[in-house]
């Protein structure tokens, strides 16, 4: 599968030709660090989000490697169980709230205004504020590791009373940092909704919007609906810990199961917050490199909306073993399985788009194709977990760990990387280094499968999650998982190398960097000048 050379532009769209609008109207931006602290430009803020997310991806990754190093062999060899618990917890929290979510927000900042023909986000100063809340939140969170009693050690799901009665003293700081991160994503969501609803280019109807814009619009609604619930839960925890209430304490008439209901009412939509924008990215990349329009655009929009609505009705599939009544068990089992239908529609549409396409395998396409295959594997294990009687067996084993890592790593993370490779020419004006990117891709795919596929087996055989030691019979699977994890982790350094090389130089990209790409971002020069679409473009509906 020799990669084709990306097409050369047919028009005179060299990257230097049009830095238009970048002149008199704008006062010179402040220099140095102040420029980044004060910027209200959606492209600069988008880059800040992406860089932040990449740094956090590595910090969270190091935590994961500490965990995998300890699990390399049975027995306790490297770290104490208490520290092991802090590592699993911090890994989950950092990856969810500091790596995946900010990466998607960064892509949204960069691309939504470009894709709808808007000059910037609707609320640029708020945008700056939402970004800068994030470093504050996560420096606070990371600092808890150095506090007396250590950092959070109760899992990323922080079930009460483990996270209240039995929690380390630093839990108050953990709650504070989660509040700050939550406010940041809420503000980001408001900004995105306001931008999409009010700032589209004249002539662009809702049903003309690129799917990345659509999926982000729906994701923002999910964020607005569930981040306040998360804020509510952690506020209740704070009150239980510090003010003697007993929301989750049976001694005072509260109920720990209530915590789980509230948490998962947030938590399940949250997992879709981490995957819907990925659907949008893949829906842009696959048609571009299959050189065919996306099959079933409208059904993609409706499927995304149905997934979002259904995601409010399935939360207790995380709680089958708390002793739900039979009727509730059945209800949540069937609604969960129902979600697989719109998800299946999406996978069907991607495959149909590929069918008889003239496919080429540039780096973004490689990641997008791997996404389709591996995300679907994660969907299948999800269906297995949705079968309540089977889940009694699988719950809290490595099978669950395998499931959600398949949907999140070769799912969400691969989609983010696909998006980065796809849009790097637009951001930097250069194509990413093809060879290195291919190495990055293949090592990542092999690493991810080596890490997570054996977890299906160790889980089915009964290995519990979040335990620093295990019985001898799981040794082989764990050895493979650990080797895979280190392979995956280190190959991400290649990704950093590709990005840095691409910023510094490389083959020049024209405005239309990929020949079949259709959306508005490909009409502005590469690299995109700081200010674009100062006068709104007139939207031309594609002919097909």
């Amino acid at each position, binding site marked *: 599968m020799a990669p084709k050379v990306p097409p050369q532009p047919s028009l005179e769209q060299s990257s230097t030709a049009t830095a238009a609008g970048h002149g008199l109207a*704008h*006062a010179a931006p402040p220099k140095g660090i102040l420029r980044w602290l004060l910027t*209200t430009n959606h492209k600069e803020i988008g880059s800040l989000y992406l860089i932040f997310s990449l740094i956090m991806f590595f910090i969270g990754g190091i935590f994961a490697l500490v965990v995998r190093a300890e699990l390399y062999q049975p027995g306790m060899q490297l770290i104490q169980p208490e520290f092991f618990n802090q590592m699993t917890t911090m890994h989950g929290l950092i990856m969810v709230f500091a790596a995946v979510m900010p990466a998607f927000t960064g892509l949204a900042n960069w691309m939504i205004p470009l894709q709808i023909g808007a*000059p*910037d986000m*609707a*609320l*640029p*100063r708020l945008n700056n504020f939402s970004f800068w809340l994030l470093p504050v939140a996560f420096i606070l969170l990371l600092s808890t590791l150095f506090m007396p009693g250590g950092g959070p050690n109760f899992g990323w799901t922080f079930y009460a009373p483990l996270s209240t*009665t039995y929690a380390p003293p630093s839990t108050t700081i953990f709650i504070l940092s989660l509040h700050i991160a939550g406010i940041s994503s*809420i503000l980001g*969501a*408001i900004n995105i*909704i*306001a931008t999409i*609803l*009010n*700032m589209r280019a004249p002539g662009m109807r809702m049903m003309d919007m690129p799917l990345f814009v659509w999926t982000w619009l729906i994701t923002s609604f999910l964020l*607005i*609906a*569930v*981040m*306040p*619930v998360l*804020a*509510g*839960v952690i506020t*209740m925890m704070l009150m239980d810990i510090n003010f*003697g209430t007993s*929301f989750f304490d*049976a*001694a*005072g*008439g509260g*109920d720990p*199961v*209530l915590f789980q*209901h*509230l948490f998962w*009412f947030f938590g399940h939509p949250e997992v879709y917050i981490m995957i819907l924008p990925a659907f949008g990215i893949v829906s842009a990349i696959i048609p571009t490199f299959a050189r065919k329009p996306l099959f079933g655009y409208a059904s993609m929009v409706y499927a995304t909306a149905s997934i979002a609505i259904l995601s409010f009705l399935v939360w207790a599939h995380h709680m089958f073993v708390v*002793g*739900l*009544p039979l009727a*509730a068990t059945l209800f949540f089992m069937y609604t969960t399985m129902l979600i697989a239908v719109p998800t299946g529609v999406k996978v069907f549409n991607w495959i149909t788009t590929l069918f008889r396409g003239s496919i080429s395998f540039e780096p973004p396409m490689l990641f997008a194709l791997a996404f389709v295959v591996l995300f679907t594997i994660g969907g299948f294990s999800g269906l297995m977990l949705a079968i309540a009687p089977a889940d009694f067996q699988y719950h809290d084993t490595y099978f669950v760990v395998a499931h959600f890592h398949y949907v999140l790593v070769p799912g969400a993370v691969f989609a983010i990387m696909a998006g980065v490779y796809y849009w790097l020419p637009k951001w930097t004006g250069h194509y990413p280094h093809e060879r290195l990117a291919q190495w990055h891709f293949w090592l990542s795919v092999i690493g991810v499968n080596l890490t997570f596929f054996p977890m299906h087996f160790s889980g089915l055989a009964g290995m519990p999650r979040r335990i620093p030691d295990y019985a001898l019979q799981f040794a082989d699977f764990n050895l493979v998982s650990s080797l895979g994890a280190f392979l995956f982790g280190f190959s991400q350094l290649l990704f950093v190398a590709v990005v840095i090389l691409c910023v510094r130089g490389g083959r020049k990209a024209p405005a239309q960097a990929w020949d079949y790409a259709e959306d508005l971002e490909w009409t502005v020069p590469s690299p995109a000048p700081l*200010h674009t679409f*100062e006068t709104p473009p007139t939207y031309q509906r594609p002919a097909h």
Partner: protein
Amino acid sequence: MSRIEMGNDDQRSAIRRTVWRSVAALVGMFAFAFALVPLYDVFCEVTGINGKVETSAQALVNEEIDDSRYVTVQFITRNGSGLPWRMDVETRQIRVHPGQSAEVNFTFNNQSDGVSWGRAVPSVSPSSATRHLRKVSCFCFDEQRLEAGERLELPLVFQLARDLPEEVNSVTLVYTLYPVETRKAQLQAGAKVLEGDEV
């Protein structure tokens, strides 16, 4: 100067409208999270799931004893953390007919050398039996106060109603002891106070 300030007035007021609507939705969802706390209790009470039984005494219903079947009732006592008490039950399990009333004695023993307050919180399983378990008298309706080393015996009088679902042939009642830290907590919970030495 940010771009938005150069946008036209229509667009600016449309954006403002969107923002206020989103903020309203946010506030609403935050309030909803807190509203779920009482709603959850109401829901559990109405449906009887969660094994939360009535927290006040119920009258004995006079109904014919259904001697066509026996139900095993098991008792489990557990100590929550932080209360130096021991709780025991005179018998681990009894067999009753639906409709029949039964009495079982529980003992509480403060093993520390200080006075303390505690409360036993009940839970019933399977949850489909919850609503059919009628407690006529139970120590769990009240808080207990025990002097250092004091021992206290308290009865549970209950009845399984005849409409107990067909498939239930064993019911487990779990009592977990929790400390009650101050007088304030009792007032807050609105519970009656039952002093050990008054009984």
